[in-house]
């Protein structure tokens, strides 16, 4: 009886602790999204209400026309920013790149972690080294190269380099490093070759990590700024950040519109993330159960 009582009080303690921590971390989490809340609030306001003090978190006058102007719905916008097209471009590039780079990263990450080929460490260090090249400086050489390849003014300028990610390879390698060698050895005894081990054993265990990587790559691409800025000159090819930059430069005076544009650029990423999060959690759970 006494013991049971002890456990119960432990539980109660734990419950208390959990509530306290949830409140603290929850408060932090709310403060993390404050900028977004403010953004959405401002995007619904009339221009002058944005700067009003004290801050009206819930606008007195809702003004959803801001979004109509940004999206050029109903013909009240001063000009068309082609946000829809920019979305499509961004999604297209991001999806292709995430598929390619998750594949290449998982292959190479596995090799760097588990296959003891000669020159592995040197190559890997070289890899790490290339991660540190400031992209600003490879920009003009890349531009010249794309030009010689006849790719300037197409999305290939974003896709070809985007099919591999060094950070992703690094991440997958670190993950595979944690997987005990025994798994691989036992499969080898059964006569499986390296590719089969990779495909049948490693990839299934690594799925949660691949999912995280896929999401991260998607977001990198979604948010990529400098390359599209320089490589894409045609508005028909613009991705979201560039469409948004254009918007900001042209209407910096109207914070409400700028905030509506910013929100428009963010919301799809949030939606994709929320959907992906479900998949991600599922993947994590599945991996945990199998592992």
């Amino acid at each position: 009886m006494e013991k049971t009582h002890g456990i119960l009080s432990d539980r109660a303690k734990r419950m208390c602790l959990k509530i306290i921590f949830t409140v603290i971390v929850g408060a932090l989490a709310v403060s993390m999204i404050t900028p977004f809340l403010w953004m959405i609030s401002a995007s619904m306001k009339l221009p002058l209400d944005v700067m009003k003090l004290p801050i009206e978190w819930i606008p007195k006058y809702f003004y959803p026309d801001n979004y109509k102007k940004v999206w050029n719905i109903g013909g009240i916008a001063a000009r068309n920013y082609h946000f829809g097209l920019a979305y499509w471009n961004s999604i297209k590039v991001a999806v292709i790149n995430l598929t390619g780079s998750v594949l290449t990263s998982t292959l190479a990450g596995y090799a760097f972690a588990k296959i003891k080929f000669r020159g592995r460490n040197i190559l890997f260090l070289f890899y790490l080294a290339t991660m540190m090249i400031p992209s600003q400086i490879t920009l003009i050489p890349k531009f010249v190269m794309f030009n010689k390849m006849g790719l300037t003014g197409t999305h290939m300028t974003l896709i070809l380099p985007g099919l591999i990610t060094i950070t992703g390879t690094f991440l997958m390698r670190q993950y595979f490093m944690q997987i005990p060698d025994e798994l691989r050895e036992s499969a080898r005894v059964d006569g499986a070759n390296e590719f089969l081990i990779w495909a049948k054993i490693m990839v299934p265990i690594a799925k949660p990590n691949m999912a995280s990587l896929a999401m991260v790559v998607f977001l990198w691409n979604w948010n990529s700024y400098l390359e599209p800025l320089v490589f894409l000159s045609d508005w028909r090819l613009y991705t979201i950040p560039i469409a948004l930059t254009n918007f900001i430069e042209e209407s910096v005076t109207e914070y409400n519109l700028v905030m509506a544009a910013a929100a428009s650029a963010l919301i799809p990423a949030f939606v994709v993330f929320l959907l992906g999060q479900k998949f991600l959690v599922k993947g994590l759970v599945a991996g945990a159960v199998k592992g």
Partner: protein
Amino acid sequence: MKKMKRFASLGMAAIMTMSALAGCQSAPKETQPASAEGGSTTATTEAAAPETKKETGGEPVVLRMWGGVPAEAGPQEACDNFNELYKDKGIQVEYERFVNDDTGNLKLETNLLSGTGVDLYMTYTPSVLTKRAEGNMALDLTELIERDGFELTQYFGSMAESFYINGLPYSIPTKLDQYGIVLNKDMFDAAGIEVPTEWTYDEFREIAKKLTHGEGQDKVYGMFWNSQQDLCYLFDYLVAQTNGGDPLYVSETESSFADPVVLKSVELLNNMMNVDKTSPTHTDSVTQKLSQEGMFLTGKSAMTVGPWMVRSIKDTANYPHDFMTAFAPYPVVEEGQRNFTQGGYGDHLCINPKSQNVDAAWEFAKWYATEGMLPVVAGGRVPASNTYEASEVTEAFVKGAEEYLDLESTQRVLITPADNYAVPSITKRIAEVKKVAVEELETIFIGQQSVEEGMAKAKTRADEILNKE
């Protein structure tokens, strides 16, 4: 052996996957949904290859013209007019807007260097024009001019030669740049102040004081020095009137930052922001992203720098206001020091030397400079060419804003050409000199160093750069 094959095929497979992934993207142009919405009204565009010559019956040549002005502020209409006029002559033009800042110009220049995507483009400052001419990004127009007898001086007077680079014409000047202080005439009237035609720094300061009133959110400033954009502009305009076209330089090897006129000008700005508080401070400008439209057109300031605001003044849908706007020249340090009119030619229309359609581009350039500019005049740009009637220019300039623009001062300050423009001649390491000036000015205006200290530092730093090998 078997294994080896497998590995090899695995490698191949990987490559193939990669190229397959790449492959499905190789034709992005076709997959572009056609833009049904308004905006670009040129229908014949997209697919036309730049190589197509304008020979008989073939596809029309589609020129790509890049400019920094939003399409709807005139260029689109100008291009549409051209397309209508030239639809049977096999030339069409498509307008592409770039934002005239570092990244926008970078984008333009990378395109120029790669030789694709641009046939004609606008250059907005003489220093950039020099850069582009010397960097083989602008075509030397000598031959074309001789071939067609299109003497620039015949249309633009002898000032056209001031914008030659190393003695050669690399551009057609299209716009007459004239600058002025933009002022709220209703506020001047209410305060009983005449629209000034000549004023000194001191008089300007006093007027700004008189026009300033209120506190906090309701404060109305006498002046708004829009310091957010480029601090150099501000004193450029002031200084050029007395010192001429190179306000940043004394010579190729010496900066002007110790010049009394420069110091006086910086002091004027500093005093108005930080002593008189008749203008929002630089900090306010930056942290609140204050804009001229947001200040002047909402009645929060009685004056601001200009005249590039004409576009917004006429846009009463986006910037509703009901007062009359007038213009005045920038003030000078002391009476009798107005030696120059700042301005000159701007909107230098250049042809990309790598363009496949040089002849067609030249055709458009001539047409635009001498006939086609009226739609952009409505957007506030005065043509440089003498082929336009003064009356039609004025009419187009104020069109749709007769109730908002004071005709007399508009004409006097912005439209009627002067004969003593301050024409720039020195561009040596100008980007670096400007950066030095901006940094020191910023530090002065936020109150961390005095005008003397800051300008002395600017002088040392800039001179060091100018004398570096």
